[in-house]
C-alpha cells in the first residue's frame, strides 16, 4: 500500500461552472483516506506544470477516490481536460484528519465554497447516508463513532446560488444546512460567519458541548478566529497553502502557529483554530 500510486480516471464531469467531480480508480490497493486528508495529483506528465497539485479527499470507497475541484489556473485547466481512461500519478492520502472526540455530542460544520467537499466527507463519516444513496451504489464511509446520535449542524456559505453544490448528498445523510450567499441569491444574504455568530449567541450557554469543524477560504477562517476565541469554542480548521512536496520536506507550506511554523501538509491541514497566528 504505497502512498505513491497511479490511478485511472473513471469519470471527470462538470458539476457546475468551473467545478468538476473527479473519480479516480487507483491501480493498486491504497491506504484508506480520512476526512481532512488530501492527495497530490499530477495533472499530466509534462514538465509544465511541474509540481503535483493538492486536493482534499471528498469521498472514498473501496476502489475509488473522489475529489471536487475548481478550475483556477493552468493545472486545474489541464486536469479538467483529462478523460476517462487517462492515468494520473497520485501521492496520498496525506496530512492529518479532523479529530473527532470519542463521545461526540454536537458537531457544527462550517463550509465556505469548495470547503464543502472535505466537510461533507467529515459529515458522512459520522452519519450514515440514507439508504437511497446507498442504493445508488455509493458506499458510506466507515462510521468512526458508533455512539454518535446527533445530527451535525452545517453552516454553508457560497458566493452565489449557482455555486452551491452537494445538496443531494447532504440530503442523503439528513443534513439540512443553513446557507448564505454573498449576493443573497440563496439562503441568507452575506457572510456565513455572521450567520454562525447569531447561532452561537443564541446557544452561548451550552456552547462548550459543541465541536466546530471549518473549511473554506482563508478570509472565512480568519473571521472565525475572533469568534472562536471570544466564546472559547472547540474549533478545528483545515488550511491551504502552496505546496511542492506534500510530504513535509520542502517546508514550503507552513503556517505560523503559537508553536512556531508548522507544515500544513504534515502537521495539518487541520489545526485547532486557537493555534493559528493569522498574517
Amino acid at each position, binding site marked *: 500500500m*504505497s*502512498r*505513491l500510486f497511479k490511478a485511472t480516471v473513471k469519470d471527470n464531469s462538470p458539476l457546475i461552472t468551473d467545478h468538476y467531480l473527479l473519480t479516480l480508480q487507483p491501480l493498486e490497493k491504497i491506504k484508506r483516506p480520512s476526512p481532512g486528508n488530501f492527495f497530490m495529483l*499530477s495533472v499530466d506528465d509534462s*514538465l*509544465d*506544470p*511541474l*509540481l*503535483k497539485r493538492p486536493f482534499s479527499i471528498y469521498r472514498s470507497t473501496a476502489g475509488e477516490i473522489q475529489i471536487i475541484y475548481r478550475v483556477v489556473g493552468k493545472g486545474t485547466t489541464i486536469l479538467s481536460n483529462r478523460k476517462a481512461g487517462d492515468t494520473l*500519478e497520485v*501521492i496520498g492520502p496525506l496530512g492529518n484528519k479532523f479529530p473527532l472526540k470519542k463521545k461526540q455530542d454536537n458537531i457544527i460544520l462550517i463550509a465556505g465554497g469548495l470547503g464543502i467537499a472535505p466537510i461533507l466527507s467529515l459529515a458522512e463519516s459520522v452519519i450514515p447516508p440514507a439508504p437511497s444513496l446507498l442504493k445508488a451504489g455509493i458506499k458510506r464511509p466507515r462510521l468512526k463513532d458508533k455512539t454518535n446520535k446527533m445530527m451535525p449542524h452545517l453552516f454553508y456559505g457560497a458566493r452565489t446560488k449557482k455555486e452551491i453544490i452537494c445538496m443531494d448528498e447532504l440530503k442523503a445523510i439528513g443534513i439540512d444546512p443553513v446557507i448564505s450567499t454573498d449576493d443573497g441569491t440563496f439562503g441568507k444574504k452575506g457572510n456565513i460567519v455572521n450567520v454562525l455568530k447569531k447561532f452561537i449567541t443564541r446557544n452561548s450557554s451550552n456552547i462548550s458541548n459543541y465541536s466546530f469543524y471549518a473549511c473554506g477560504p482563508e478570509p472565512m477562517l480568519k473571521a472565525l478566529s475572533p469568534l472562536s476565541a471570544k466564546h472559547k469554542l472547540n474549533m478545528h480548521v483545515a488550511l491551504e*497553502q*502552496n*505546496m*511542492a*512536496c506534500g*510530504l*513535509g*520536506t*520542502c*517546508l*514550503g*507550506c*507552513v*503556517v*505560523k502557529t503559537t508553536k*512556531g*511554523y508548522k507544515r500544513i501538509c504534515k502537521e495539518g491541514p487541520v489545526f485547532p483554530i486557537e493555534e493559528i497566528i493569522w*498574517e
Partner: protein
Amino acid sequence: MPKQNKINLKVNLGKLTLKNPVMTASGTFGYGKEFSEFIDLNKLGAIVVKGISLKPMMGNPVPRICETPSGMLNAIGLQNPGLKGFIRQQLPFLKTLKTKIIVNILGNSVDEYIKLAEELESLGIDAVELNVSCPNVKKGGIVFGTEPKAFEELISAVRQRVKLPLITKLSPNVTDIKLFAKIAEDAGSDIISLINTLSGMSIDVKKRRPRLANITGGLSGPAIKPVAVRMVWECFRAVKVPIIGMGGIVSSEDAIEFILAGAGAVAVGTANFINPKSTIDIINGIKSYMSSNDVKSPKDLTGKVKC
C-alpha cells in the same frame, strides 16, 4: 548482450567514496525520513540534508514557494532546527543508514561555519557542504558566495580546522563561475557542487504582488538545467577537484548529461517533490544506460562530452 554484472556504480569524489553517483540536493529531501516510505534510503549514493545553522532559524513568511514554467521559486528562508535540534531530532535516524550522510551548513560568520564543521566532523558525518550560495537570506550565505574575497577566506578557514571532505556549493548568480571554482579549489575545498538556485521573482498580476512573501526566491527545476550544465562544463575544464552537478535533474538522461559535462556525481533536488522515487529511478536509469553502452564505471563518462 552487454553484461549488467560488470557494471560498478561506485564513484570516488576525492576522499569521498559513494556507492553510486546519485545523491539528494540539500533542502529537497528533508532529513531523509519522509522518503523512507517510498525508497530504500540505503540505495542512495549519499543523502545531503537540509541546511543547518548553529542556532535554529524560523524561516520566511508564506507564500514561500510558487511554480514557474518548468521550474519553481522558493524562499524558505533556511528554516532549520539548528545544530542541536538536528543532532537530537535527526541524527539518530540518519546514523542507522548505510549511505553517506552529508550536512549542508550555513552561517552568518566564518566562526559559525567553523563551529558547525568541527562539531559535525566529531559526530562522524561523512562530509560537509558549505552553503555559501543560498540566495534567499540577506545576511547568511549570500555575501560569501558572490564575493571572491569573503568566499576564499571562509573556505580556507574551515579547511584549516577540519579533515573531513569539504564540499563548496557554488552560486550560479555570478559573472564567472570558473573564478569561484578555482578559488574553492585553491582554498582547499575537496569537492565543488553546483548549481544552487538562480535568483528569480514572480508577480501575481491580479493581486499585483510578488508571489513570494520574500519578493525574490531561488529558481530550481528543469528550467535551469541548461545553465547548470553549462556551468558544470565550464568548471570541469577549469579545476581538478571533483564536481557534484545539479540543477533540474528529473531523469537519468538529465543525470548523464551532467556527468558527460564533467560531474563526478549528481544531486537530485526539485524532482523529489514531483516523484519521491526519482533518485532510485535515476540510479536504475544510469545503470541501464551504462549497461547498454558498455560503460564500466561512471568515471568513464565524466567530462566525456565530445566537443
